[in-house]
């Protein structure tokens, strides 16, 4: 924790990341119609937050329909072992995926 953070500051909606580095998360399972940016191969999988992307941004799934502004949330770089993604994965057990996922696709586990 930063010791020089000034007290009494209220953050705007979306400024505070919901998840932190090192947290275990699950990728949600849902099936949006029309446009999405969370690929199917990660849905329902568990991962670890490797980084919080700053600054918060507009949901790109909504941007795809012309929303150029609005409520901002964070993207997170999530690490998922390839052997968790693919049954019978033939490479090293250490091999992994890194992928940016928007906050509304992540759940605490």
């Amino acid at each position, binding site marked *: 924790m930063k010791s020089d953070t000034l007290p009494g500051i209220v953050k705007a909606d979306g400024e505070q990341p919901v998840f932190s580095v090192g947290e275990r998360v699950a990728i949600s399972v849902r*099936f949006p*119609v*029309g*446009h*999405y940016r969370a*690929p*199917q*191969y990660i849905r329902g999988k568990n991962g670890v937050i490797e980084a919080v992307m700053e600054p918060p941004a507009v949901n*790109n*799934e909504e*941007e*795809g*329909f*012309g929303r*150029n502004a609005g409520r901002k949330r964070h993207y997170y770089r999530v690490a998922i072992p390839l052997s968790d*993604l*693919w049954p019978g994965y033939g490479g090293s057990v250490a091999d992994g995926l890194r992928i940016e996922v928007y906050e509304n696709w992540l759940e605490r586990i």
Partner: protein
Amino acid sequence: MTPSEAFVKRLPNDIGGLSADRIDRADHELQPWEKRCHALADVLDFHKILNTEEKRRGVEALGTEIIGKLSYYERWVAAFANILFQKQVLTPEELASKMDEVSARFKRESEL
């Protein structure tokens, strides 16, 4: 999942992990119109007339068959047309008229 559900639930571009062929490393030099098309996409995004994510969605919305049959930049320009009509920036009639005019002009210039 029924076949008809599957088509809507999985976008045509959502192919991570699907089986696929060997990689063909052949590359091609962009044709001038393709480069102009890329520049047009960038300029439209700068102006937020058509942002990059809208372009992606527009290409997806062309559907699997068209995506499979059109080249990369052909998909872009077809998607742009749809999106610009939807946003009422252009009308189908004015684009079609202009295309006729451009086509005729190209023909004349090639005869010079």
